[in-house]
């Protein structure tokens, strides 16, 4: 049945993602970074909002967005610097900000959702 086909496919995709070394590496890095208190700002996507909506980091730091909603969201840079894939519930996306500046972003599916990253 078609139903089983797409659910199986979705399951396969998830296992592939969760099994990928790259993602686990990012998670480990994020945990280490926050444990050391160095970096690793995290932005939660909750109730169709980026929380906090404005985050300030130092150049070279990585920000991780985590989707806590049941709805799919994405992270889309206003300047086209970065675009996440669709993030389903509990999925995450990280981006390392190399240069100082003010970076606006939004959700591509819900453009009323906006956030700002200020890099010092």
């Amino acid at each position, binding site marked *: 049945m*078609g*139903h089983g*086909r*797409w*659910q199986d*496919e*979705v399951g396969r*995709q998830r296992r592939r993602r969760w099994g990928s070394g790259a993602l686990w590496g990012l998670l480990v890095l994020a945990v280490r970074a926050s444990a050391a208190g160095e970096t690793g700002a995290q932005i939660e996507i909750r*109730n*169709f*909002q980026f929380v906090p909506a404005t985050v300030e980091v130092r150049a070279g730091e990585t920000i991780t967005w985590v989707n806590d*909603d*049941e*709805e*799919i969201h*994405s992270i*889309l840079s206003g300047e086209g610097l970065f675009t996440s*894939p*669709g993030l*389903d*519930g509990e999925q995450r996306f990280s981006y390392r900000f190399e240069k100082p500046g003010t970076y606006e972003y*939004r959700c*591509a*599916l*819900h*453009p*009323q959702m906006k956030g700002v990253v200020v890099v010092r």
Partner: protein
Amino acid sequence: MQTTRRELLTCAAAWAGAGVVWTVSSGILSSRALASSAGAAKIRRASSPGDLHFVQISDTHIGFDKEANPDPVATAREAVAKINALDVEPAFLLHTGDLTHAQKPGAFDVVSGLLQEARAGAVFTVPGEHDVFVDGGKEYLARFGTGTLGSGWRSFDHSGVHFIGLVNVVDFKSAKVGALGDEQLAWLQRDLAGRSASTPIVVFVHIPLWAVYPEWGWATTDGEQALGPLRRFGSVTVLNGHIHQVLQKVEGSVTFHTAMSTAYPQPAPGTATGPGPLAVPAEHLRSYLGLREVIWRGTSGALAVVDSRLA
């Protein structure tokens, strides 16, 4: 048998007993609330040559698998079963977008199969933002774009009614979810030019053309530019999805009807911190989901829009 407006109102009174509230405005008869399909059946049985009967489903969100509805394929199939159980085969089925949930792998295959199961003379669709999210609409157009222009807009005539399918979700990468764009607006102007103001118009589109709740993205930023050239027509009916609930608005000769989803409900505008899937007790889910029948009386010019719950 020819049915007069009085007879239609009699039917409407029967529907009122089933929870329907009716309004008559600018010659348009329309439902404001939810009905059992019994009243619609009564009107269908009283149909006469020249009448038109079609159905609308919306927001099937195939690929969604969260608490609000772990199995949207099953509920979409129930909606199709209700269509197939109608005593009259609809002239066509309209799907007003979000066929898939963010183009999950395989979801377009599933929804295409579901639509093929529907007993209807034809199927017409417009995309929702979830259908174009990953690839800008390439797969959607490859599957459903036959006979359309641009990002998937089209018009056609049936039984003296002019139908216009609009696309207001494609330019999402430039933050234009809820926009039609200049090219489509220019096409709409050309499409309407020269048509008699007495031609009934039905517009189908995903995101509401009117500002239901812009704070939640429930609006089309250039919707008014589309409505401008439509206002000279005596009867304009706008059918949309996106917000997963029945709302209605009347502006002169233009009536707006948003539709239920077959997948999951969303909160009423402004009643939650944001839009999104609304989890309700499983035993109540089907009372938030449904489909729509539209019956156009060619003889009297009356239009009935009937929203029916799955259960």
